[in-house]
């Protein structure tokens, strides 16, 4: 964190809270495995847009919140999101200049990495291997990325989040 004054922190927090709510919002039974990782999408956006504010620490804490709110193993999502935040902040200059569809591919790879980490953790604690639909959320996340990107960018410009 730098000493330069920050603005619009409430927008960042509000978007994270909204993402957390979307993560536990009840869905019909058949749709549950397909729920996109809203929290990852929002985190990736803020890591690209404001890497000086949102980074590994915030990602780790957000992951911890996800672990508590969905009652998974404490630290599982924290690990995934910390790594996601780390990679995204490292590459944010490159990702910023990509067109949105190209960013979506990068986002897809990041989401896939999270799923792989998650399945490794699930394997380590002897959970059964999930069905094939387990791999669907990264694809849905990739398709949703342009939407998330445009909404959050317009919010950022309107509230001048630095």
């Amino acid at each position, binding site marked *: 964190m730098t000493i330069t004054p920050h603005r619009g922190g409430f927008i960042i927090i509000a978007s994270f809270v909204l993402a957390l709510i979307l993560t536990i919002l009840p869905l019909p039974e058949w749709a549950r495995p397909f729920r996109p990782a809203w929290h990852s999408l929002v985190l990736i956006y803020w890591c690209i847009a404001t890497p000086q504010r949102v980074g590994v620490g915030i990602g*780790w804490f957000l992951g911890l919140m996800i672990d508590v709110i969905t009652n998974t193993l404490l*630290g599982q999502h924290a690990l995934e999101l910390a790594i996601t935040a780390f990679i995204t902040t490292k590459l944010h200059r490159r990702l910023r200049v990509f067109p949105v569809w190209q960013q979506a591919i990068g986002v897809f790879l990041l989401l896939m990495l999270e799923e792989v980490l998650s399945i490794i953790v699930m394997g380590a604690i002897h959970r059964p291997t999930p069905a094939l639909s387990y791999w669907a959320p990264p694809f849905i996340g990739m398709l949703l990325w342009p939407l998330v990107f445009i909404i959050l960018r317009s919010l950022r410009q309107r509230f001048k989040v630095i």
Partner: protein
Amino acid sequence: MAAAVLASLLMMVVDHRENHLEIVRSALSIIVAPLHQIASLPTSSGEWLSDSFRSRQHLLNDNKQLREDNLKLKGQQQKFKALEAENMRLRDLLDSSFKIGDQILIAELIAIDLDPYKQQVIINRGGNSGVFEGQAVLDADAVLGQVIHVDPFSATVLMITDPSHALPVEVNRNGLRTIAMGTGRTNELELPHLPNNADIQAGDLLITSGLGGHFPPGYPVAVVTQVINSPGQPFARILAKPSANLKRTHEVLLVRALASPTQGPPPTPAMEQATP
């Protein structure tokens, strides 16, 4: 970065092996509890709306149906009272410490989705209402699961179909005891420890045996659907369908046995889950 990764790995190991992180989880869950409420708002307000704008005819029909059900249940209850008294008399003659009668607390599910690969639900009663860890949870038909985590105003329930859950059961027909393991599918339990020549058949009702010390004995659990005997295998493959409505439950009953029929201290959940 390295610190975050190390911290996460350490937390995962500690959380999985010991229960020391319950304090951290409880503290953080105070922050996220309002989010649970907000996320369940669409469902609860939808229910409120449909309750408020229901037609008179519908309500009358409901009322009639409930009256009939109530009459039937009361009729059955009369017989049950007499049987209970007789049972207690006979048990007194045998000097048995067994007592019939459980305390029941009604709770509602909070309509939110947790991790789709774990079968858990959150209920709206917690430590303040006397809910405790390991308490048995039923729905109107059968056993649903057990409480695994208690917060002041809510509690987490692990369903019997979760792959990490095992439940001591017995066959109602002949008292054959075994363990019912969750499979991760909401409509299936597995009985992995019965030999090929065990006296069990499709259609048998499984009830709780009360042996683990967590679940009071005598509540229905599941109905055996399939018994597959393969001569090459030492154990039969037996599947059962839970009688509880695990997908569409709204209200649940939390049971507390008045006197435990088992001797000695009840085992910890970890022990109960680990020992087949």
